């Protein structure tokens, strides 16, 4: 599009001319330029220039000669830049209203101008430039007359006589607007008149030649464009275009080739104009359809057989220009699909609205031009002699015509060319241009455009064309780059023929670039492509298949042979691939080709590895099957296969005996590895080569086959990633082929489930780990759990014992809620230490032996234990709370000395241990028998629930402490004592053991047995509350046959008591026993401890068992600090345990009643006087007991 002249590319703009007063021209020009419909200005400073500009060639209109051409090259330019539609003449108001000489000058200028513009039919506007204010002008009557005279002289309508006031800003704007309106009105009138004039010529058929008809139509269209009447312009362009094609057959004075070239050039211009108008008008659909018609018409055009390249070049330009036009107006094309009309009338498709399509076709035609130009050039070798004659060929005055410029003295003259000369000229021109670069540029634009449309396949085709062009230019680096990009898509979609073609280029480029690796890769991929013998018939028609040749089995075999020769030993003898001497594999330059899971070379070599067992024991051998598959057309002899595992000691090699012995490259490293021999290692097309070997590993864990290295020839090997048959991807490309598919292993189950890795179990531990616990643990004691390790099969090295205490309930050893309460106590169960291990740890000095003990976790390193030996230690665990725990002990060790890499063997043991409370301690405080003090706190009880027990001051109270064994384990109670916890206690309270016989030594308590001890408590100071102290029980577990266990002290705090002064003390006295019918006296003694007189009501109820004398009821008064005794004589009437007559006392002062308990008022009645041995002593004793 750029090669078109400006006047063609841009729509025409009206042109006017300004004459006179040159100082005002810039202002007016810039104003007119900035208008919505701009007007170009031809500024002529003085009047003398006007006739020169408007000069018209004298035409012999009546001549019958045919015109020299269709369109004149400079006609449009002339109208756009030289011939104005109107001339605006500027006179200064001073001149107009000045003296006679000035006026005369004005008149003569005007006359000359009128004469000059008349033949061109150019309009005239007279502008008077006001030098002073307008008021001055109007006031002057003289001026009025002058203006009328001026109008008359100029022969213009009064509205075309304008005032221009440059000095006043507001006036200036108005006058400029006025000028603009008048100019555009007149210009458009001028173009309309001109158009109409020529149109009448067309309508009246005032022409003799189709050239003129066409030219008139063109002119009408241009004039229409001048006044922006696009529809009329379009109509006449189309008309011109139609006429043009009718001229194809007509004879002219031009020779045939040049005639067609001229028509083509004009058609091109018309087509450009039409397409531009349609596209700018938003009629994309029309534009495309028009271009399609144009395209069809072009194809029908008679081709010039002598110079076909001219046609192709022209065609290419048509597409290029349309593509560019489409691209510039692509903003208006938001939705392509809306243009593609559905239904029957679908003649246009999506791509025809895309510039890419046209760029691609432009490139295609240019390519055709290139090839036909080459043919033409090769046919004319005598171009050198003709060079001189065509040197001076230049475009002539008509569009699409060329002529020779001859210099005859000073004059230049055009000489028409003969067709031969013209062809020579075009050939010489063609040679000057490198079409390839142009083609690449076009294709790149198409490629980018398609890529942006996500039309990958179209893009790839363009890419391939680019690559071909680069290849043609011997630019192998670029070819390779482009091909590498596009082959991915073809591989993905499995278009074998296309892959073949691209690979052919890639292979050839690699060969040319001397890249051995890529050459081999591409060759092998090509050789392994699924081009099968029966389908090759389809491809017989391939002629332009590039350097790859025809895709056929023979070609594949040929390619494979070529590559194999490169691997082979022969390459050293110089018998390498004949064409590529620089492609060679040597010892210094060996090649390893890696094939991974996504490589396109999987078709060349596919390696599948399957272990026959998924889990094996260490040192036990299992079978492994290696299967290789190749799609190469010829069989391959493999020299050696290396299998590599993640455990390098398992690696082994398989050697082809007959081939490998000849080579002497077994290095020392390889010798140390396992070698297997195979009688023949030949890989045939699409047949699995299955090899099964034994394999074993000492090391536990995963054993995985990583890669398989297949050695072909001395310097070439293929490294395949091992694939597992269970989830192997299909072979690329071949998966679409209808081929025989077999399993990689003989066993079909293995083929479906086989894995390339196996799990090797841990070695069996030959060590005993014993944990013993003797029954439940007791809270408070250090519970001992012996741990015994005995080696029974191998030695134990660098062993480590891990001990964990875990709550059975699984929530740790202390729950979060308890944490706060027992924060200071720490854990409920605590690992105190490990006896037997610490000594070892210390004896081994500062070795890096680990010996750490935490509250619930312990880590102990154990010494080396020889086979058959035992080692033991004792875990010391203390329970603070009764809780069951799980004790986990795990031993990790290695069976090899000084072998850090060997696997650790682990044994785990666990033991649940209950924690129990050994003894529970209870206590009871009692008052002396039959002696009841009245304590005021009892009379007025407080509501407090936690009211303390009150003890009467100065009385001896009885405290019974009992400890009961609540476990099944017998325990020995060593002692039970009460510790007072503060010094003053000794003075405030007297606690001493009861007067019973003191037990010496320890007492055995079996399950649920109770141990009791009696204390007397005598508060001596009236202080409340009073602490009684802590009961300390010292006990130990019954050791049984074992060594004596340690003594544990269990403490129990006694509650605080109140000490009160009793007001009244009532005590009853009677003998320890009675004899039936034997009377005795029953005393009730009332002690008043208060300094007040106490009034008491006494009430005595009868008892059936006794006959009684004394007051039954009455009131007694007890004097302060004195005693009162009531005495009753009683005769028992029945024997056995009998209830004494019950008395009750009521203190009126304290409103407190008193009634002795039934136990206190019970007495045993013997039927007759018992006969006791030493009855006197016993009676004394009984008495003493009773008075406590």
């Amino acid at each position, binding site marked *: 599009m750029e090669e078109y002249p400006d006047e063609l590319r841009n729509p025409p703009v009206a042109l006017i001319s300004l004459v006179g007063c040159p100082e005002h021209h810039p202002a007016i020009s810039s104003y007119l330029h900035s208008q919505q419909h701009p007007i170009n200005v031809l500024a002529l400073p003085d009047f003398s220039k006007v006739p020169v500009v408007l000069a018209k060639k004298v035409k012999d209109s009546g001549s019958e000669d045919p015109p020299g051409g269709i369109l004149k090259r400079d006609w449009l330019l002339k109208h756009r830049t030289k011939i104005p539609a109107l001339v605006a003449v500027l006179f200064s108001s001073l001149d107009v209203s000045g003296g006679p000489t000035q006026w005369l000058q004005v008149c003569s200028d005007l006359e000359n101008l009128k004469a000059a513009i008349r033949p061109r039919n150019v309009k005239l506007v007279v502008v008077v430039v006001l030098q002073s204010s307008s008021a001055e002008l109007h006031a002057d009557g003289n001026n009025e007359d002058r203006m009328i005279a001026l109008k008359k002289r100029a022969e213009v309508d009064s509205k075309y006589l304008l005032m221009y006031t440059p000095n006043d800003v507001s006036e200036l704007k108005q006058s400029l607007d006025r000028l603009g309106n008048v100019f555009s009105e007149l210009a458009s009138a001028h173009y309309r008149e001109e158009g109409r004039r020529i149109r009448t010529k067309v309508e009246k058929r005032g022409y003799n030649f189709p050239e003129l008809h066409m030219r008139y139509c063109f002119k009408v269209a241009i004039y229409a464009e001048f006044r922006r009447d696009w529809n009329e312009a379009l109509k006449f362009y189309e008309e011109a275009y139609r006429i043009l094609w009718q001229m194809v057959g007509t004879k002219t004075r031009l020779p045939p080739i040049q005639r067609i070239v001229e028509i083509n050039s004009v058609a091109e211009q018309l087509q450009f104009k039409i397409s531009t108008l349609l596209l700018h008008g938003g009629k994309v659909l029309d534009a495309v359809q028009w271009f399609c018609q144009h395209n069809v018409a072009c194809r029908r055009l008679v081709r010039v057989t002598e110079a076909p390249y001219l046609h192709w070049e022209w065609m290419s330009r048509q597409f290029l220009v349309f593509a560019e036009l489409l691209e510039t107006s692509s903003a208006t094309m938001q939705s392509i*699909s809306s243009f*593609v009309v*559905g*239904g*029957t009338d*679908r*003649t246009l*498709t*999506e*791509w*025809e609205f895309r510039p890419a*399509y046209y760029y691609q*076709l432009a490139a*295609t035609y240019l390519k055709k031009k290139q090839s036909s130009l080459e043919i033409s050039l090769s046919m004319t070798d005598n171009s050198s002699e003709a060079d001189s004659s065509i040197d001076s060929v230049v475009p002539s005055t008509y569009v699409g015509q060329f002529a020779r410029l001859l210099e005859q003295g000073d004059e230049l003259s055009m000489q028409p060319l003969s067709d031969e000369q013209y062809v020579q000229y075009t050939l010489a021109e063609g040679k000057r241009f490198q079409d390839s670069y142009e083609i690449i540029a076009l294709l790149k634009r198409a490629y980018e455009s*398609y890529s942006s449309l996500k*039309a*990958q*396949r*179209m893009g*790839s*085709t363009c890419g*391939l064309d680019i690559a071909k062009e680069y290849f043609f230019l011997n630019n192998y680096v670029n070819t390779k780059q482009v091909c590498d990009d596009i082959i991915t898509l073809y591989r*993905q*979609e*499995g*278009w*074998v*023929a*296309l892959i073949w*073609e691209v690979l052919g280029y890639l292979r050839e480029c690699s060969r040319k670039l001397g890249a051995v690796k890529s050459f081999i890769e591409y060759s092998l991929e090509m050789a392994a492509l699924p081009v099968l013998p*029966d*389908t090759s018939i*389809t*491809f*017989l*028609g*391939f*002629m*332009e*298949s590039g350097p790859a040749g025809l895709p056929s089995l023979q070609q594949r075999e040929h390619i494979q042979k070529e590559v194999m020769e490169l691997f082979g030993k022969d390459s050293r003898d110089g018998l390498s691939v004949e064409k590529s001497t620089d492609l060679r594999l040597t010892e210094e330059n060996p090649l390893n080709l890696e094939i991974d899971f996504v490589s396109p070379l999987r078709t060349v070599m596919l390696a599948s590895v399957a272990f026959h067992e998924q889990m094996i024991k260490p040192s036990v051998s299992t079978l492994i099957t290696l299967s290789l598959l190749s799609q190469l057309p010829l069989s391959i002899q493999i020299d050696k296969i290396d299998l590599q595992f993640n455990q390098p000691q398992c690696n082994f090699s398989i050697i082809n005996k007959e081939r490998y012995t000849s080579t002497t490259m077994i290095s020392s490293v390889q010798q140390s590895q396992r070698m297997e021999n195979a009688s023949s290692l030949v890989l045939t097309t699409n047949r699995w080569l299955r090899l099964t070997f034994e394999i074993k590993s000492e090391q536990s864990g995963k054993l995985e086959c990583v890669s398989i290295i297949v050695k072909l020839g001395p310097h070439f090997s293929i490294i395949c990633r091992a694939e597992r048959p269970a989830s192997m991807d299909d072979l690329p490309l071949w*998966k*679409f*082929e*209808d081929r025989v598919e077999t399993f990689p292993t003989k066993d079909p189950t293995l083929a479906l489930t086989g894995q390339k890795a196996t799990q090797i179990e841990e070695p069996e531990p030959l060590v005993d780990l014993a944990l013993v616990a003797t029954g439940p643990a007791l809270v408070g004691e250090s519970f001992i759990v012996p741990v015994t390790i005995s080696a029974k099969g191998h030695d134990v090295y660098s062993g480590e014992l891990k001990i964990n205490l875990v709550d059975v309930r699984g929530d740790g050893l202390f729950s979060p809620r308890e944490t706060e309460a027992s924060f200071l106590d720490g854990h409920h169960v605590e690992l105190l230490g490990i006896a037997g291990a610490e000594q070892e740890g210390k004896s081994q000095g500062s070795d890096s032996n680990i010996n750490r003990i935490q509250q619930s976790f312990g880590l102990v390193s154990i010494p080396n234990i020889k086979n058959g030996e035992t080692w033991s230690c004792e875990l010391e665990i203390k329970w603070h709370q009764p809780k069951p725990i799980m004790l986990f002990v795990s031993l990790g060790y290695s069976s090899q000395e000084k072998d850090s890499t060997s696997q650790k063997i682990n044994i785990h043991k666990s033991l649940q241990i209950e924690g129990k409370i050994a003894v529970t301690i209870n206590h009871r405080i009692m008052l002396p028998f039959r002696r009841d003090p009245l304590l005021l706190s009892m009379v007025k009880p407080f509501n407090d629930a936690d009211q303390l027990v009150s003890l009467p001051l100065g009385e001896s109270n009885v405290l019974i402490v009992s400890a009961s064994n609540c476990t099944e384990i017998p325990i020995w109670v060593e002692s039970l004592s009460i510790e007072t916890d503060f010094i003053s206690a000794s003075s405030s309270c007297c606690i001493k053991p009861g007067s019973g016989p003191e037990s010496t030594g320890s007492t055995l308590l079996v399950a649920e047995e109770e141990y009791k001890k009696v204390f007397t408590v005598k508060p001596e100071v009236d202080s409340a509350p009073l602490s009684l102290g802590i009961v300390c029980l010292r006990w130990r577990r019954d050791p049984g046959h074992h060594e004596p266990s340690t003594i544990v002290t269990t403490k129990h705090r006694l509650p605080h008591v109140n000490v009160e002064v009793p007001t009244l003390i009532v005590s009853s006295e009677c003998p320890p026993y009675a004899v039936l019918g034997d009377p005795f006296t029953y005393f009730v003694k009332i002690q008043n401890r208060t300094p007040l007189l106490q009034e008491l009501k006494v009430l005595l109820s009868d008892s059936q068992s006794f006959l009684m004398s004394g007051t039954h009821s009455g009131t007694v008064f007890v004097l302060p600090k004195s005693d009162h005794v009531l005495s009753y004589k009683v005769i028992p009437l029945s024997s056995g345990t009998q209830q004494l007559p019950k008395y009750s006392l009521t203190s009126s002062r304290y409103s407190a009643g008193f009634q002795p308990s039934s136990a206190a008022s019970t007495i045993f009645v013997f039927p007759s006087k018992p006969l006791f041995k030493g009855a006197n002593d016993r009676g004394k004793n009984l008495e003493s007991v009773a008075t406590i």
Partner: protein
Amino acid sequence: MIVCVAIVGHQNNPLYIQSFTDGDDALKLHHVVHCSLDVVDERVNNPKKSGPMLNETYLGLLYPTENYKVYGYLTNTKVKFISVTTDLDVKDADVRNFFRKFHAAYVDAVSNPFHVPGKKITSKTFAERISTIVKAFGLSSAG
């Protein structure tokens, strides 16, 4: 005249491609068929709003190259049929009819119990049947 027919599978891989030219443009036809898949994609991804196109298997003219016209057909199992003609003026009904026959032949070929779905069609009977259909199309469009 039909110069090439092709069946293209789900992964846009060729299942069957056969050209009927004596010339040297078989490879070019491969490219043409491959490129036409872009248009099929475009048509499938941007379906027309007009109603009758909704369940239409016949895709119509896919794109014109300088010498060929490419027509497409999409089965409901998303298998694409492509045909390349050299005629510049072909009746739509003829092409539809051709594709219907082509589709029937394909259905018969893949119904063969020995055919593995997704693999190339190698049946000779199918190839013969296709060339008969192609010849018949040439006669009908010429006449």
